């Protein structure tokens, strides 16, 4: 039986050392895989704040992932074409600076999550799942039918957006960016879960009546949690757009929402490093089995079923034999 903290540290070190070693051995593909893990894990850290800590089963986080992605893509495409985004009442130029793109992605994701959350959180249970899905589908179809930014075909980013002092086109440099964001998001989520806000949020997941009875309004808590959650996932979306140098409506699809949720379930719902464990396992399976059969997702389904039936604590729960978290 292992304790959880060493397992978490080992996972993070693995995520850090594998791409560094791969880079030294001139295996850029492995570095890109690790970058994908870091980005997916960040997206899942975002969802985990709503789902794991708040008990809010959002089936619409692809909306925020995609909004972050389109934020990056749209700003970059305007910069590439030297066309301002708007000229009235003031001129807004496009940009390829990550330091500007990130706040825009966070803001756009936050506004979208606030609006979607404000309406969705009036429902609960299955209705909440369905209404978040419905909102995400609305955003998806909007992107598909909006020709200005590629519609169904998506939007290419010809040159990866830049960060001062780094050559983001070098795989290891871009990995470093994604890794730091993953760490920052995870540390923030840990702090959040131990704070006043986190205590009340997790209390409301366990027993909402009790939280009301001590004078705390669960709706406001959940709305803030959902907004923070959407912002982090949107940021991951902006990074994902840069990784692929391409944004398409598939980032907004319900399959994407499902995948982000699968990372969390595989890794362990509510566990701080569950998103990393889940995303890493997912990418590894895709890499190892995807080459063998295009039906690899069938095996993923079987694994998911096993985790849900027999290992409630997810992968980290199995390794550490601890079901409780928090």
């Amino acid at each position, binding site marked *: 039986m292992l304790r959880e903290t060493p397992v978490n540290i080992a996972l993070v070190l693995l995520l850090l050392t594998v791409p560094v070693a791969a880079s030294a051995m001139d295996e850029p593909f492995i570095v890109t895989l690790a970058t994908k893990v870091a980005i997916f894990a960040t997206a899942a850290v975002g969802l985990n704040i709503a789902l794991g800590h708040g008990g809010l089963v959002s089936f619409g986080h692809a909306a925020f992932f995609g909004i972050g992605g389109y934020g990056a893509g749209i700003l970059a495409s305007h910069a590439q074409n030297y066309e301002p985004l708007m000229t009235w009442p003031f001129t807004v130029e496009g940009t390829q600076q990550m330091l500007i793109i990130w706040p825009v992605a966070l803001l756009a994701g936050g506004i979208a999550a606030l609006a979607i959350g404000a309406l969705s959180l009036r429902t609960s249970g299955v209705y909440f799942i369905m209404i978040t899905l419905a909102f995400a589908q609305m955003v998806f179809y909007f992107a598909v039918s909006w020709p200005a930014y590629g519609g169904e075909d998506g939007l290419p980013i010809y040159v990866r957006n830049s960060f001062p002092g780094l050559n983001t086109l070098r795989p290891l440099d871009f990995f470093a960016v994604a890794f730091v964001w993953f760490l920052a998001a995870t540390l923030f989520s840990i702090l959040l879960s131990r*704070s006043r*806000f986190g205590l009340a949020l997790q*209390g409301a997941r*366990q027993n909402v009546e*009790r*939280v*009301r009875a001590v004078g705390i309004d669960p709706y406001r808590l959940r709305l803030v949690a959902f907004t923070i959650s959407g912002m982090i996932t949107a940021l991951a979306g902006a990074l994902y757009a840069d990784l692929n140098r391409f944004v398409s409506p598939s980032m907004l699809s319900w399959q994407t929402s499902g995948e982000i949720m699968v990372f969390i379930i595989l890794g362990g719902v509510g566990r701080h490093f569950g998103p990393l464990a889940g995303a890493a396992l997912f990418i590894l399976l895709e890499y190892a089995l995807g080459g063998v059969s295009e039906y690899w997702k069938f095996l993923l389904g079987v694994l998911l079923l096993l985790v849900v039936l027999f290992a409630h604590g997810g992968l980290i729960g199995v390794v550490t034999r601890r079901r409780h978290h928090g």
Partner: protein
Amino acid sequence: MAEPILEIRDLTKSFGALTVSDHISLDLRAGEIHALIGPNGAGKSTLIKQICGELQQDSGSIRFAGRDLAGTGTVERARLGLARTFQVSSVAPEFTTLQNVVLAVQGASGRSFGFLRPVLSDPSLTGPARRHMERVGLTGRENILASILSHGERRRLELAMALAMEPHVFLLDEPMAGLGPEGSVELTAILANLRHEAPILLVEHDMDAVFALADRISVLVYGRIIATGNVDDIRSNPEVQSSYLGETA
């Protein structure tokens, strides 16, 4: 005589044809324990739910500290100083006892939007929480998950959470339920002291506890209060004996 802290007038509530609260008038004065007794299905819990805002009355009024509670919800009433315990223990099961009590201290503080500072290293939260746990005899059980507490400990945890809110009124819905004789005696001693902090509206089936604690007793039968008075009045009231005490004594 000072104005009562909690003043219920002509409270009526029906579910379809069934009248569960039938022109109930009741008040709670500073420093007293007012027990509400009555057979099962008399509408005691429904009354508690209306007082704490979980249910809205059809007519009549509830005034608390001179203010009409009409239109205020559960959260706001808790903030105003109404602390309740539940008939069936209601705590956050995945939290430790300390976390549960801290949650209540935090609720009373009105500040739940701190995002970075860990609650368990904030003495302004844990200090009062530990003090309230000590009062109900839960010292040494701080780090036990609430889900694995014994039934009696969970009842006491609920009481610690109510204490932690530093309320103006305690609404205790059958705090003795399922405690067994020794547990009831211990809890009776704790409750006896509590009235100095805030008056208690006590719904209880344990007659020994009620007669030991109550300054006044109201008897609720089929949604109607058939008698209110001190312990001796109620014991000797023939209507009460036939409709309620007679069944048990």
